[in-house]
């Protein structure tokens, strides 16, 4: 058992591309669910929009990758409007069903083999990151975090990603403190009360949906640039559920909640994965075959996520940082 390798892997995972992407996804959800009480189950769709809004213009129309970043804001906002207009006036379960369905429609549309020249089908789009590679100073330099090696490219993706996280966290913090944010939270607590004060609940909800969607879309951008692929497998419905797990873990309705939540989430995922890999491989002590094998250990981490999510909501719904009094759980 190589403990130092397991731990350095896990620490790298906690600050790496996956953690950043999921932190942004959960920050977007925090605006939807944590502050406004919107039950968005289609966050994976927003991430997909983000990833493909970079990958398709670069490969199909030859745009510069950095020009695509404002384009992401436009496409994600359009998607949010498309989702919001029919559903925001209805009860929250309808928004949940429609968003989950819309995200799945998007995923099926980009996976279909009919339009591979556009979306790459199930293989996704793989060669669109050259602009980013050329823009950073030393993409092929080798670094080490304890025992975990990574390249200069990875380093700059992390710098880019954490800058986005910091900017969006600052924006969220400022907005939630403003009068606008107070109206948002009052909608979460009692929609009718907010309406009786003359607030246009629909437009507040819509702006919240757009804002959280755009933040989530940038999570997709980071995942796509960091993994150097935009692939439909990444954006399954489970991504949304993992983002919820992260949000609940960190604390719903707290600015730092989703960020710390994502770091802990990926630390635990990577740690359990590497640990189980170690006890099922050929070297050293091995777990008995009837219990766990080298073929089925990768599924255990998802069991941890699912079981952990259920137990957290039951026993510590406020997460690590949340405030029990301000619990955003019961949307109508």
């Amino acid at each position: 058992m190589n403990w130092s390798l397991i731990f350095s892997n896990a620490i790298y995972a906690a600050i790496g591309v996956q953690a950043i992407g999921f932190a942004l996804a959960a920050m977007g959800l925090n605006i939807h669910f944590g502050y406004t009480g919107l039950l968005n189950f289609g966050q994976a769709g927003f991430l997909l929009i983000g990833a493909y809004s970079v990958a398709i213009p670069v490969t199909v129309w030859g745009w510069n990758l950095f020009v695509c970043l404002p384009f992401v804001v436009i496409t994600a906002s359009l998607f949010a409007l498309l989702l919001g207009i029919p559903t925001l006036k209805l009860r929250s379960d309808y928004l949940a069903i429609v968003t989950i369905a819309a995200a799945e429609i998007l995923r099926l549309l980009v996976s279909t083999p009919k339009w591979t020249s556009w979306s790459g089908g199930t293989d996704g789009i793989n060669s669109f990151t050259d602009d980013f590679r050329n823009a950073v100073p030393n993409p092929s330099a080798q670094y080490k975090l304890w025992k975990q090696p990574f390249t200069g490219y990875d380093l700059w993706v992390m710098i880019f990603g954490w800058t986005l996280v910091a900017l969006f966290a600052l924006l969220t913090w400022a907005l939630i403190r403003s009068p606008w944010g107070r109206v948002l939270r009052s909608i979460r607590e009692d929609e009718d009360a907010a309406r009786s004060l003359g607030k246009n609940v629909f437009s507040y909800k819509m702006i919240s949906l757009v804002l959280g969607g755009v933040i989530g879309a940038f999570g997709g951008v980071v995942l796509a640039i960091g993994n150097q692929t935009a692939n439909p497998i990444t954006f399954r419905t489970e991504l949304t559920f993992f983002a919820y797990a992260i949000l609940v873990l960190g604390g719903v309705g707290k600015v730092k909640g989703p960020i710390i939540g994502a770091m802990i989430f990926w630390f635990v995922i990577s740690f359990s994965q590497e640990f189980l890999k170690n006890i099922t491989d050929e070297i050293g002590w091995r777990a008995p075959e009837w219990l766990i094998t080298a073929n089925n250990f990768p599924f255990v981490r998802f069991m941890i996520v699912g079981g952990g999510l259920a137990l957290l909501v039951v026993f510590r719904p406020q997460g690590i940082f949340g405030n029990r009094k301000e619990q955003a759980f019961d949307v109508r």
Partner: protein
Amino acid sequence: MTIRIRHLLALVLAFVALAATLWVPAAHADDIILKVRVQNTAEETGAKKQPVEGVAVVAVDSAGNEVATGVTDATGVAELVVPAGGDYTVTLDESTLPEGLSAGDAGPSRTVTVTEGLGGNANFNLGSSGPEAESRLDRLPQTLFNGIRFGLVIAIMSVGLSLIYATTGLSNFAHAETVTLGAVVAWTVGTNIRIFGGTTGFSAFMQLAFATVCGVLVSMLFAGLLETRVWRPMRRRRIGLTSMMIVSIGIAIFMRYLIQFRFGAQPKSFPQFASQENWNIGPFGATPRDTIGMLVSISCIGGVAYMLMKTRTGKAIRAVSDNPDLSSSTGINTDRIILFVWLLGGALAGLSGVLFGLDEQVQWNMGSRLLLLMFAAITLGGLGRPFGALVGSLVIGLAVQLWAWLFPDYTDLKTVGALAGLIIILLVRPQGILGSKERIG
């Protein structure tokens, strides 16, 4: 923090018991069988696959040695005995294929992993090499028939989901895993615990019936345990519905990967029923398996409808779904009614899992792949309306099949058609087909 430790312990025990069901060791066969199945998908006589007889197949091991040969029998199956587990390449002799058929898009070779004890499967779906024999209009009745058949399976899945929603307000994501659990347990029991010896005809049917009963019972037990150990204590603590929904997502993910952990990622089919001859009635074609499945679905739905409309329990269920407080003050034992609904929903989910597994294949994510269609069905029909689930399911089933009929080049997008239809209908009539207006606001 007053959830009782007793509940937690019981829950853990329940999960252990469920996990143990999945732990049944694979039966050890003396011969390692690589089963090759050749089917004709080109002739759309019933959109069902037809077995192809007399095709020569050969298996080559990873070192390039020819280890076994065979010819398919009347059921389109050739069983090749291979010396050990490992990867084998199975190739069709294309010169032995019937006229007008080709090896299809995937080519005449497959690489198959064979495990000792479980064997391996290679499936060949032949395509047409000539021009399309049948016009599209001729296939319409069969498409509608298949749509109704698929809709009925979705209906018995989603009736439980809908009743649970109506009585407790919970959108239960773990319902998908209740479906999968029924199918997986039935498959495991059916292949490993042989009570009826034969592999054909009546005894095969009885074996399947026995396996189905086991699957249904386990699904029912799972749903019942969730209600008594998780949802009821949470309701007592007045935990909100959104929290409960997220808990159900957690349980769903846990169970889905527990099933994958034990059952594996490969899809498996019920061997003795994999291919059957069609019965052709007028323009429709259906295998005996499909016909029995459809009769079972219809009688289940009829039974549930009768129960809801005519019996005391049914009346109580409808009362609880209208107003739980009022119904409990008129002397209805709400908890018992809700438990009954969970058990019923679980049993129907398990049964529909087996039916769907017979129709297609048993796989760890079969339930979660269908969950969205179930939600779409109950939303379409009107959330919380049990008959809405039936109507919505039939619409969804027909929409999926008609999409494949209208756009044969885009069959992989057939779910998109159904889901997009859902969004459009919500725009026009948000309360669903049978819903009433006050429920949406």
